[in-house]
């Protein structure tokens, strides 16, 4: 893996304002993501995990500090960053193919080449037969796969995954996380995955960042090295080191039900 930083946050802090007052969401976040890395971000609820993604996507500006993507400071959404939300948000009035072309349409990049690339993605990931179907005709797992292809269609370098599996049932979730990890590796993208699920983070990522309670700071950084021939997340869960990582991160999260 070449050590070229593709996403960098430099002492990033962010405060939310409401009539009730000011809430510090993130405080002094410094991180580097290298090309081709898969980063998992875990942390307690409300610690600002999603805020980090919004900052990288250019949907928000930090109160202080700087965010860089490919060496340029982020000043708005760019086609280098793709965002995948918790729900698939496929548009019911568009067919699968029309949904997948949405990003290209908005960025005014619809041409023969980009359409062919998109059709190729649909075909590679087993959705070619459904291109003229409407979203309602597809299962939850398939819809989320369509959402991933919609994100990939604009050919971003970095993928931001904001709990993309949390709306799915457990089996679908496992199968889809496997598939998504494979797709992202195959397309050679860099990815940041925000999740509540520690196992998901460990099994999919090269590196897991643990955030503290609000205001979110980076508490620790775990390089994940699991032994096993098969790189598929479901198989990796069986690796002997998996438990150890899980226990360490679990302790760091310091979850109390009270």
């Amino acid at each position, binding site marked *: 893996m070449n050590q070229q930083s593709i996403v960098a946050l430099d002492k990033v802090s962010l405060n939310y304002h409401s009539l009730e007052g000011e809430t510090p969401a993130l405080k002094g976040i410094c991180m580097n993501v290298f090309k081709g890395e898969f980063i998992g971000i875990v942390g307690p609820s409300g610690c600002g995990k999603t805020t980090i993604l919004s900052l990288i996507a250019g949907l928000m500006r930090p109160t202080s500090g700087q965010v860089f993507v490919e060496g340029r400071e982020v000043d708005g*959404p760019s086609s280098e960053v793709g965002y995948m939300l918790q729900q698939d948000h496929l548009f019911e009035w568009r067919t699968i193919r029309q949904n997948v072309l*949405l*990003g290209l349409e*908005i960025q005014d990049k619809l041409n023969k080449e980009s359409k062919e690339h998109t059709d190729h993605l649909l075909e590679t990931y087993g959705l070619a037969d459904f291109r003229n179907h409407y979203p309602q005709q*597809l299962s939850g797992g398939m819809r989320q796969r369509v959402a991933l292809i919609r994100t990939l269609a604009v050919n971003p370098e970095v993928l931001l995954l904001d709990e993309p599996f949390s709306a799915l049932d457990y089996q679908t979730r496992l199968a889809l996380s496997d598939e998504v990890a494979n797709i992202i590796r195959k397309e050679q993208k860099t990815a940041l995955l925000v999740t509540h699920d520690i196992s998901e983070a460990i099994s999919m990522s090269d590196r897991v960042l643990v955030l503290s309670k609000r205001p979110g700071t980076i508490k620790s950084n775990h390089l994940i090295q699991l032994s096993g021939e098969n790189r598929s997340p479901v198989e990796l869960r069986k690796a002997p080191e998996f438990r150890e990582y899980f226990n360490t991160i679990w302790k760091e999260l310091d979850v109390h039900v009270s």
Partner: protein
Amino acid sequence: MSVNKQTKPDSQEHLAYLKKVKQKRIAVRITQVAILLIFLALWELAAQLKWIDAFITSQPSRIWNTLVNLHDTGDLYMHVSVTLYETVIGFTLGTLLGTTIAIILWWSDFISKVADPYLVVLNSLPKVALGPIIIVWIGAGTKAIITMALLVSIIVTVIGVLNGFLDVSPDKIKLLRTFGASNIQVLTKVVLPASIPTIISALKINVGMSWVGVIVGEFLVSRAGLGYLAVYGGQVFQLDLVMTSVAILLVSATLMYQGVAWLEKRYLKWRL
């Protein structure tokens, strides 16, 4: 993994189920038609046997004769087309203007907040009360009637459509923003298409509102149209004429409503 319907042959049990559903539907339809026929028959009978005074209540056969007369003189089509013209124009203007205003209010949070109390007040005002003002300002004629229809329908449209816009999931908008969408793109790619069901139900209400506006307008100023026919009939104490125009109104308004319902079906095929 598709949830398409299975195409294997239906079992006996399933056929029986389908038959039961169909029978129930037929029974409902028969009862509906029967109620109408019995009502008309009783009305006719009561008038024939002088239980009621047909001079005041009219009766189906007289309504039919009036209808035939109006058809023979050609007046029927003149009156219907006048009213229909006014309603369609009022309806179209109400929908277009109402939707445009809703778009402006959606676009600017500031304008929307400023306009809010005015909308509430205008919505509760019975627009019919503005009739005399409209006549003085615009003159007694077709324009005044169309204005009336417009006034009655526009506020409801604005409120209905705006609520539809505001119901669009913020995450859908966020998704577009991550692709770098502009405000115009957010409007045309998600807010408008996602609100089409709401807009269509606003249209359905609007059809009724436009008829109210037009008929009231015709009561006040007109020389022709179904509303005029009804008022004229009342003035010369010809209840047959009044009842006939009401009957024609019933049919026309229903047809127009069905037209909108047809549009809904045609353009919302993705709602399966």
